[in-house]
C-alpha cells in the first residue's frame, strides 16, 4: 500500500514539475511550449560526449552530485532562455496557434540536433548511482531515489512558491501573468519577466531530466516527449496558466496512472493510458476551465 503511495507520488512529481514548466510560460505569454520536452532531453544529454555507442561516454556526468545537479539545471535554463531570445521573441505578437507551431518546429530542431550527435539508440547511464539503494520505511522497501524525488519536488515547489510570493521579481511575474499590458504600464520590463519564466521553466526541465534519467538508467532522445505529453495534459486539466492547478493535476495524473496500473484487471493494463485519458475527458466535461481556472485570460503583450 505504502509502495503504491510512493510510486504515485514520485510519478506525480515528474508530471507536476513538467506541468509547472509549461504553465509558467503559458502564464506570461500564452504560449504552449511543445519544445519543453526536448529541452528536458537536451539538458541531460549535455552530460555526454557525442557518440553512436549504446553505452554512454560520460563527460560532465562524472562530476560529483553537487556540481552535476547545478550543471544540468543551468544547461536547461540556458537552452530555454536561448529559445526565447532566438525564436519566441519574434512571435510575441503572433497568434497562440502560430506560437504553438513555432514551438513544435523548435522542438524538432533540438531533437534532430541530438539525433545527429547521439543517434537514436537509447544510452544506458548510471546517474547518481548511490540513489539506487533501497531504504526501509514503515516496513516497505523503497528505492532511495524515489524518496529523494518526492522530497526534492516538495522543496522545488516550496522554493518556487516563496520566490513568487516573497520576491520583487516574483511579484512582477504574477502581475504580468494576470495582465501583461497593465504590468508594463507600471514599468515591469516585459523581456525580463519572460526570460525569467523561461529560465525557471528550463531549470525545471533539467530537474525532470535528472530524475527521469536516474530512475530509468537510460537516456533516449525521445525521453522528453512522454513526460511532456502527460505534463501538457496536466496543465490543461489544471486550468491553463494556473500554477497550483498544474501541480495538483500533475500529482492526480501520476496517482491515476499508478492506481490503474495496480487495480485494473491484468488484461486491461496495457490500455492503462486510455483509461487515464478517459478520466481526463470526464474531468474536462464537468469542468471545462480546468480544476483551478486561471484569472485574467486577457490579451497578452
Amino acid at each position, binding site marked *: 500500500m505504502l509502495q503504491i503511495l510512493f510510486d504515485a507520488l514520485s510519478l506525480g512529481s515528474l508530471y507536476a514539475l513538467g506541468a509547472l514548466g509549461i504553465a509558467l510560460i503559458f502564464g506570461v505569454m500564452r504560449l504552449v511550449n511543445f519544445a519543453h520536452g526536448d529541452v528536458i532531453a537536451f539538458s541531460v544529454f549535455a552530460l555526454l560526449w557525442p557518440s553512436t555507442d549504446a553505452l554512454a561516454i560520460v563527460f560532465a556526468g562524472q562530476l560529483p552530485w553537487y556540481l552535476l545537479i547545478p550543471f544540468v539545471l543551468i544547461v536547461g535554463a540556458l537552452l530555454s532562455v536561448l529559445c526565447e531570445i532566438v525564436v519566441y521573441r519574434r512571435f510575441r505578437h503572433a497568434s497562440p496557434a502560430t506560437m504553438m507551431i513555432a514551438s513544435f518546429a523548435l522542438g524538432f530542431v533540438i531533437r534532430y540536433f541530438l539525433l545527429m550527435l547521439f543517434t537514436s539508440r537509447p544510452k544506458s547511464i548510471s546517474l547518481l548511482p548511490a540513489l539506487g539503494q533501497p531504504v526501509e520505511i514503515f516496513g516497505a522497501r523503497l528505492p532511495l531515489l524515489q524518496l529523494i524525488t518526492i522530497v526534492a519536488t516538495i522543496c522545488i515547489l516550496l522554493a518556487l512558491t516563496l520566490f513568487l510570493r516573497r520576491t520583487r521579481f516574483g511579484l512582477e511575474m504574477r502581475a504580468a501573468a494576470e495582465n501583461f499590458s497593465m504590468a*508594463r504600464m507600471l514599468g515591469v520590463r*516585459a523581456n525580463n519577466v519572460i526570460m525569467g519564466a523561461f529560465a525557471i521553466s528550463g531549470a525545471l526541465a533539467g530537474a525532470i531530466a535528472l530524475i527521469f534519467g536516474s530512475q530509468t538508467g537510460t537516456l533516449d532522445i525521445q525521453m522528453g516527449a512522454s513526460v511532456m505529453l502527460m505534463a501538457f495534459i496536466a496543465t490543461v486539466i489544471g486550468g491553463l496558466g494556473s500554477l497550483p492547478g498544474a501541480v495538483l493535476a500533475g500529482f492526480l495524473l501520476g496517482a491515476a496512472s499508478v492506481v490503474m496500473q495496480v487495480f485494473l484487471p491484468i488484461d486491461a493494463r496495457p490500455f492503462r493510458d486510455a483509461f487515464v485519458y478517459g478520466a481526463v475527458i470526464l474531468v474536462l466535461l464537468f469542468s471545462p476551465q480546468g480544476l483551478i481556472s486561471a484569472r485574467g485570460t486577457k490579451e497578452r503583450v
Partner: protein
Amino acid sequence: MTLLSLTDVSVRYGRLTAVRGVSFSVAENEILFVTGPNGAGKSSLMRAIAGVTHCAAGKITLDGRDITAEKPENIARMGFSMVPEGREVFGSLTVEENLMVGTGMHGGAKRGRIADELASVYDTFPILKERRNGQAGLLSGGQQQMLVIGRALMTQPRLIAIDEPSLGLAPNITDQVYERLIALRAERGLTLLIVEQSSTRAVMVGGRMLLMRGGQIVLDGDARALGNSEAIQAAYFGYEDH
C-alpha cells in the same frame, strides 16, 4: 516647459480611425482635462501615449524624447503613469501587492520614499489599508478604482494620466481623489492629464480643457471660460458637420 507633446497623432484599428491627427502639448505642472462624448477617441489617445496602442501616424515626445514607438515599460519609467479605463487590478494579488507592482522601477532616493508613499496612499484611501491583505479581485468597483489610482501614485510619476477617475466612485470619494491629486500637483509639481466624459468636473476644478469628438480636438481652452458656452453644447449634442 513642455512635458508631453503630440503632433498629428492618429490611431487606427483596422479600417476604423479612432484618433485622427491630434496635436496638443501639456506643460509641466499643468492640469489638462480631455473631455468628450463616448467614442470620441479619448481612451485610444491615452493608450497611444502610454505605448500600449500603436500610433498609425504622428509623433509623441515626453520630456523632449521621442516616445512614439517606445515600449510601455520605458515610458512608465520616464515618469508617465497611466490609469487605463476599466479598473485593471491584478485580481489574484493582494491589495498591497497591487500597490507594490509599480515600485520596482526605482532605485536610490526614490526607493526610500516607497514606505512614505504607501502611507500616503493609505491615508487618502483608508479602505485600502483595511483590506491590504485581501484579494484585489474581491474589492467593490469603487474600491478597485481607488486601488488603480493609488497604484499609479505609488510609481511617483511626474505625469499621471487617469482615464475617467470618477467612474464608479461615490461623489464624495471622487472629491477626495481630486483633492489628493491637486495637493500632489502643488507639493511636487505633478502634471495631471485627466479624461472625463463630462466637462462638469473640469469646470469645477479649473485648468485647461480639450474637447474631443470623432477622433479630433474640437475645442481647446480654459475650462471655466469654456464652461457652459454654446460651443460645448454644440460639441456634445450637435450634428457632425465634418
